[in-house]
């Protein structure tokens, strides 16, 4: 029996039919079996009906990409095969729900049809058809059936023995069906050392958990896909530590409640997606003008406007970098992996309070909703730095009737008194103000306080403002967020298949852009290629604003709502490289 060390698997079906949980069970089972598991869901903006699918990739090494191909496909509706067929790896097995058992070779794959529902009904539990299909999946890779049992026992603990038994029976039936009909196609997924030092987690969960660990105790937000999970995670966890979330009346309230809470001294955040982000535009300016530290998460989806609410895109970069009238100090960070989402989220609160300004934390649908396998978190990497908050003793020293909340200082950051401090009484303001917070229209003060505000963030840095891979290469692939997973795989593929080394640059701090630190990896290169899920090449445009690389830079873009396939990007990169080489030869 062939032994394999990676598996790409997918289940497709109609929304509302448990496709998601079927995928989750298999993913968690493989995760516990010792594999690095990465998953991706495709779903529609409706509740029941419509095709959805859940992709899973299990690898013996960490990765952020759920893979281009499918080895085993569970087709639980009629749309699954037509929609996903192009991903089937030659020799793939497709298990389809159908009228009668039938096994036949199709063009490039083996089609195995089973009357899953009928079989499940026979077993006494029509709902268990997905469990049968799961059992078949496990059997096809010779996963010990006990792996499923353990999971089922835990999952259905509260539902009682009967449910557990019927689910186990369904899994068993799946194993039996494979042994009966597909024995010759069985492989063996090599067991790996199990580890209790890993987590299987989504980007939204990592972001929420990181915020929680950083001491965020207040979140006000409004539901929206794909950000709602952040609020929901916090709703489940904050009350236990004396915090709370509030689902408020709209996204403007989402940000302004957070500003109020932050003003009063809580670490506060709001989370949303594009439409909500647009609504927060005015209040973003208020947070910056009043020097109130908040964290705003934009989990991007496909726009513009309502757009494609359940589809992936990275098209809010311009908005996050530039939106709001007037000019504000803003920090924009964008974790390049699910693991980084945890640490970047945690750091965002330190940056916000240290620099007393809003921090925008960008995510994208793939980064938000995909799950992957990361090392357990390292609490030592999450110190809390609340910046220049003053105690009553410290505030008293100034001896001021009105505390100078916007005091001019060397680093542009003013001591901050929280409400309740008897010596810190002051008014924060969205109007232009002097050091005391009171309105001023004096042009000299205005110029000075504008400089203070804008310049104070110049030195702000994440601990990892970017990652470089093969930085010496003369062609760099640049990406943000979930594009890192794609680029890493593309680089691997180009190295392995074509012997070509391309560099990777994954920028986590978009604003202030660490221009000098990035220069070595951008300025003198032969070619800069951004890989981005948007129409305009927003990242490329942002880089061009800082580096005159116009004639040796290009963007590989995709904006159809789906994440990149590695194959496509690798192909396009090769084309670009060819073009560059031909142009150079022509010149020579």
């Amino acid at each position: 029996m062939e032994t394999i060390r990676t598996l790409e698997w997918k289940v497709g079906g109609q929304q509302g039919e448990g496709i998601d949980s079927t995928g989750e069970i298999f993913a968690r089972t493989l995760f516990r079996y010792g594999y690095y598991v990465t998953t991706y869901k495709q779903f529609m903006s409706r509740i029941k009906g419509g095709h959805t699918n859940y992709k899973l990739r299990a690898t013996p090494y960490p990765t952020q990409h759920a893979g281009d191909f499918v080895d085993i496909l569970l087709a639980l509706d009629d749309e699954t095969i037509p929609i996903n067929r192009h991903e089937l790896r030659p020799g793939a097995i497709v298990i389809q729900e159908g009228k009668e058992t039938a096994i036949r070779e199709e063009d490039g794959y083996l089609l195995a049809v089973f009357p899953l529902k009928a079989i499940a009904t026979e077993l006494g539990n029509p709902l268990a058809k997905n469990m049968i299909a799961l059992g078949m999946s496990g059997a096809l890779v010779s996963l010990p059936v006990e792996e499923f049992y353990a999971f089922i026992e835990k999952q259905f603990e509260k539902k009682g023995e009967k449910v557990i038994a019927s689910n186990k029976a369904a899994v068993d039936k799946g194993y039996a069906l494979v042994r009966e009909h597909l024995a010759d196609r069985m492989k063996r997924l090599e067991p790996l050392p199990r580890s209790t030092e890993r987590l299987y987690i989504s980007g939204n969960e990592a972001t929420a958990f990181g915020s929680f660990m950083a001491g965020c105790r207040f979140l006000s937000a409004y539901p929206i896909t794909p950000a709602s999970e952040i609020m929901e995670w916090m709703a489940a966890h904050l009350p236990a530590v004396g915090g709370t979330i509030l689902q408020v009346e709209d996204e403007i309230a989402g940000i302004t409640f957070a500003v109020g809470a932050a003003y009063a001294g809580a670490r506060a955040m709001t989370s949303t997606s594009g439409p909500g982000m647009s609504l927060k535009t005015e209040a973003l300016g208020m947070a910056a003008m009043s020097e109130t530290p908040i964290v705003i998460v934009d989990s991007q989806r496909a726009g513009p406007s309502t757009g494609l609410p359940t589809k992936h895109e990275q098209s809010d970069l311009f908005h996050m970098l530039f939106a709001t009238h007037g000019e504000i100090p803003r920090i924009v960070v964008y974790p390049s992996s699910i693991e980084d989402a945890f640490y970047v989220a945690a750091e965002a609160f330190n940056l916000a309070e240290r620099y007393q300004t809003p921090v925008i934390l960008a995510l994208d649908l793939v980064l938000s909703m995909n799950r992957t396998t990361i090392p357990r978190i390292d609490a030592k990497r999450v110190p809390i730095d609340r910046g220049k908050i003053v105690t009553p003793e410290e505030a008293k020293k100034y001896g001021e009737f009105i505390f100078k909340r916007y005091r001019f200082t060397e680093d542009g950051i003013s001591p901050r008194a929280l409400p309740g401090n008897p010596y810190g009484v002051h008014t924060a303001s969205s109007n232009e103000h002097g050091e005391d917070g009171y309105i001023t229209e004096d042009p000299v003060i205005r110029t000075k306080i504008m400089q203070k505000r804008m310049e104070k963030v110049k030195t702000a840095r994440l601990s990892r403002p970017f990652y470089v891979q093969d930085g010496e290469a003369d062609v760099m692939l640049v990406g943000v967020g979930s594009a890192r997973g794609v680029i890493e795989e593309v680089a691997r593929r180009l190295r392995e298949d074509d012997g070509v080394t391309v560099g990777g640059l994954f920028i986590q701090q978009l604003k202030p852009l660490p221009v000098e630190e990035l220069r070595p990896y951008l300025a003198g290169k032969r070619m800069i290629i951004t890989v981005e899920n948007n129409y305009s090449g927003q990242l490329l445009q942002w880089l061009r604003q800082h580096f005159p690389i116009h004639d040796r830079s290009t963007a590989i873009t995709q904006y159809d709502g789906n994440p990149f396939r590695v194959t496509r990007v690798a192909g396009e990169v090769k084309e670009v490289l060819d073009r560059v080489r031909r142009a150079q030869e022509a010149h020579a």
Partner: protein
Amino acid sequence: MSVELKKPTLKDYKGDQPTWCPGCGHFSVMAGLQRALVNLGLHPHEVIIVSGIGCSSKLPEYTRAYGFHTIHGRALPVAQGAKLAAPEMHVIVTGGDGDGYGIGAGHFVHAVRRNMDITYLVMDNSIYGLTKGQTSPTSPHNFVSKTTVKGNKEYPMDGLSIALANGATFVAQAFSGDVKRMTEIIEAAIKHKGFSLVNVLSPCVTYNKVNTYDFYREHLVDVPEPLPTREEAIRVVKEHGGHVHGILYVEKRPDFQTLLGIDWKMRDIAAGPMDEATIREIEAEFM
């Protein structure tokens, strides 16, 4: 740190020099509020005053206390956020009729039903003062201004009745021409545990030649005692075309934070990492 707390005086509340027009009703609202705070024995550092944008919204600049002069229409959500984080503070919201009933109307109706323990003073002059005299949501029907050249064809917003209809637990109307009464009303509003609305009729002497001090002196009808039911209160408001004066309705009911019933620790964020046990418990969810 131990702080010697002298009894607060009006002087403690003196902020920046007001820039309101001489005779503006907003002076009286400020006087009434400051007097009420002093009467209640509250110190400036125990109070947060949050406002939007407008002539009225400049009040926090002129009253020394913790303050936040926010953006147009967003005073209520900022104030509620502050109150959630710092429940021991007394949170007062001030702003204009445009700020609160125009652009802020959505937040208003939700603040009413949320019933947090804050006090909202709407400084209602039935005009957009700071932008130089446009029609406001409370301007009378057929009111003439630069934006309603042939008269306002909308009917005025009835903030009092909306609050009553949507479950407000304290609803009152005061008048800048009667600071004494206003002070009593504001004191009662602050003492009320829950959301308290005080609509203050506060004439704009520069731009509104209809809703003047004299107009109100002539038209206001006294409501000496809170009315027994919401419907009765609405009936009285409607009967007098909104020209009522006094505390209209009060209901005792636990406020939002009491109902949430959590052990409030939002501001005490330990400077070190979290305790291991909590981390492990959460990590277990991902294993």
